[in-house]
């Protein structure tokens, strides 16, 4: 590599003695500016965390997690039905997306890493991660709500499954890539079939990383509002079946945030606290448990 490409000629001043003070000053100034701007991002985050805790925590009680939302004006009750609804819809999403994502990842990394189908799967997964989350909702509305004729928990679950599928697939692929190739060679050398190798050698080694990916995407799905906003809608009652409008924590925040009732707004903050705590915990757990092993 020649020096000419590395350092533009005009950039360094020719006579260092005269301008060195200026150069050093500019260096210090830019360093300070950079640090200041970086620390500036701490402000909004702390503001969010502080407000969520300050406004959300006073309401935390047993009743909050066991009772139904109050009618407008009343100052008691909780969002138990929304918690149940969120769990059910995330559960449906897991059931639909996790097997599909992991099997797909096994195919594109273990069985046919260079095939045209695998290239297509990677490309599609990348595209799906880039699709706005509300499009998942629009699709579920078109495919499930309009077909079945009712807003339902099932439609919400379908929308969420599309949201988490690409993340699960891509993180599972990364996890499988992290397993050293020598493990597979050793397994084949001992006479194992591809199936035995994948199930006894590759998957056990990649499992923690795969689970981390699943956990992170599930935590994200729990907080997503756009896909369930007009597929599961909202309900003030307990969920009776999968084919009726269902409450969720995220839609509760959206609906209650704009209400003129103090107690409902506080409930929105409490629901935010629950979601933020969930996401933070998962992220911290992932940081602790997922230390890349072989790199």
């Amino acid at each position, binding site marked *: 590599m020649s020096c000419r490409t590395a350092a533009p000629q005009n*950039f360094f001043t020719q006579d260092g003695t005269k301008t060195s003070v200026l150069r050093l000053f500019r260096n210090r100034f830019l360093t300070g500016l950079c640090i200041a701007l970086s620390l500036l991002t701490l402000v909004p985050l702390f503001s969010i965390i502080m407000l969520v805790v300050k406004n959300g925590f006073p309401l935390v009680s047993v009743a909050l997690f066991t009772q139904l939302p109050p009618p407008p004006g009343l100052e008691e009750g909780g969002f138990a039905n929304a918690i149940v609804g969120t769990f059910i819809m995330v559960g449906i999403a897991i059931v639909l997306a996790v097997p599909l*994502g992991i099997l797909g990842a096994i195919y594109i990394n273990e069985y046919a890493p260079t095939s045209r189908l695998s290239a297509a799967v990677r490309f599609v997964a990348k595209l799906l991660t880039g699709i706005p989350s509300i499009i998942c909702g629009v699709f579920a509305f078109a495919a499930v709500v309009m077909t079945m004729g009712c807003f339902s928990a099932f439609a919400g679950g379908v929308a969420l499954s599309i949201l988490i599928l690409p993340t699960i697939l891509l993180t599972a692929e990364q996890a499988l890539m992290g397993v050293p190739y020598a493990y597979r060679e050793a397994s084949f050398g001992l006479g194992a079939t591809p199936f035995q190798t994948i199930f006894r050698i590759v998957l056990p080694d990649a499992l923690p990383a795969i689970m981390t990916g699943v956990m992170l995407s599930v935590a994200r799905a729990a907080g997503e509002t756009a896909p369930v906003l007009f597929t599961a809608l909202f309900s003030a009652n307990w969920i009776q079946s999968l084919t009726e409008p269902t409450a969720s924590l995220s839609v509760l925040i959206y609906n209650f945030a*704009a209400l003129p009732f103090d107690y409902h707004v506080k409930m929105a903050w409490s629901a935010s606290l629950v979601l933020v705590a969930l996401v933070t915990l998962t992220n911290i757990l992932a940081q602790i448990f997922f230390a890349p092993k072989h790199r």
Partner: protein
Amino acid sequence: MGGKSITTEPKGSLTREYRPRPDLFRAACWLASTLTVALLVFILGEILYKAWPAIHQFGFGFLSGIQWSPNRGVFGVLPVLIGTAASSLLALLFALPLGLSIAIFLSENFLPQPIRQLIRFVVEMLAAIPSVVYGLWGIFVVVPLVQQYGAVIAEKFGFIAIFSGPAYGNSLLTASLVLALMVLPTITAISRNSLVAVPPTLREGSYALGATRWETILGVILPTAAPGIVASTILAFGRAMGETMAVAMLIGNSQRLSWSLLAPSNTLSALLANQFAEAEGIQVSALMYAAVVLVIMSLCVNVTGEAVLRRTQRSVVGLK
């Protein structure tokens, strides 16, 4: 990439005849892969199919129409398209300087490693907070701020078109400020990766020529990492365009064209979020049409961003 295929079957066995059985698990994996690809086609097809009546009825006039009134069956999304572009670009304007300086901060050794780790964690947390929580926070923090200072700005600088007219709390500016926070992690993460990928020899060479740290950063490292930074900006633009909830809660949802940043506006995704649940008949179809427009726009932006990113990775590898 994961390396070689492991599908090569042994051709024969010494002790007994080898009969390859059909690998059902492989078939299941193949099916899952095919379904994933089919899913994208299905999503696009389904939305397009449901949008067809509106596409047929309104044609391209949908994109240039400035009226959106479901009661009269008139649908045009030009103000919404402008709102989408304006809010995303404005968000980038705010987020790019911040994101870039964090990326530089994280890739240099200004402060000890633990502090950098903390900042990195904070930025990752920003990405993890649900959109709707940003919206709630925006309603109670950013909206009052914009209302208060917006009124002052509108009074003093009202002669400039972008500050003209009365100032609202729920405005384009409010949504852009919160959007900027939300796309910050995208810019930071990708820019940082491309800064870290710059070969250390370039930095050493620059230092050896007597350059200061910032002369090195601005003259050598940033230009080398520039394609990655451009890619991060494009991808962040894509994210900003698709963000729904926070924008729907903050932008004011008005389909009226206005020059002012302090006036309410609307974006495609916020329009979908607000109207889908109560839509009927041709309005559903028109909303599906809007969704088609949003999908096409975000796919174009994302594919461009990914392509730039891929080229960057290749070119940096070439430098080593």
